[in-house]
């Protein structure tokens, strides 16, 4: 485990963008394929997906790998 960002910087960033209601990883992953195919019509849901991507580095990594694999523009 190398190059881990400073804990207080990560935590402050997460706390600042913490909301009462957020998508969890399970729901994010359920919606990921329709989102990548641009078939999520609800703008509020798209915004929740984007917020989760910013909050969760692991899901963000998954999106990044998929975008590369599928030849999509990076989200």
């Amino acid at each position, binding site marked *: 485990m190398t190059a*881990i960002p400073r804990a207080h*910087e990560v*935590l402050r960033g997460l*706390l*600042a963008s913490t909301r009462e209601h957020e998508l969890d*990883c*399970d729901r994010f992953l359920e919606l990921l*394929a329709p989102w990548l195919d641009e078939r999520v019509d609800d703008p509020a849901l798209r915004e929740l997906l984007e917020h989760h991507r910013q909050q969760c580095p692991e899901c963000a990594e998954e999106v990044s790998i998929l975008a590369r694999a*599928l030849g999509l523009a990076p989200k």
Partner: protein
Amino acid sequence: MRRGRSGYTAPAGSLLRALLRASETPGLPAPYLVFFEIVRPRGLTRPPGRPDTAAVPRSEETWVDGLRARGGAGYTEDVADLRDYLQRTLAKGFNQKLTAQDLDDLTQESLLRIHQKLDTFQGQCRFTTWAATIAVNCALSELRRRRYQHVSLDDAAEQADWSAGDEPTSEAQIEALRRGIKEALTERQREAIEAALGGLPLMELARRQGVSQGAIYKLLHDARRRLKGYLEALGQSGGGMLQETAS
């Protein structure tokens, strides 16, 4: 050894070898039989001269119906095409950095996972995109497990860097965060947030606790909300502690 239609040859992975040994056991459970139908060597060998039909677009229904129709005329070809697609997808997604052995094993595991989840495909996206998300998630899960399997929660927590660095953050603010973790969170929340800040993936935390990644995310979300409330009660929000930082 398995030989694909492209001539690519790779040794069978440990999981596959174990399952192949198990296949000789009478009364093999149904999931294993499905697995063998997917990965058995003859199922991976396309007849010579057969075109690469993976390049031919299929409808979502055609994909699903084909993969459900075990024993059907096109089943072997559908599985071989999906396997080729997943292998190319994983290779490209991981920037060609997977070893041939890993690529082969992860492709097989992905195929099995897709087959198990086939009934959950709802047609809200392309079948190939859906399959790719499962394959990448499957691969990341295995790679993260391997990387972190010997890292304990305490070890991970110790990796967290609480130094101030160049940030204009006062020691008092950092201390308030650390005190909040100790005082405002449950033991389970504290363990999880400290391990996550030390770099342990949520996926790995979930695997160890036998819960989903979403359950760990919810645990950490509750922890963040508690911690935020704690800091606001201390009056830290006005001092820039909770202002959104540029990413």
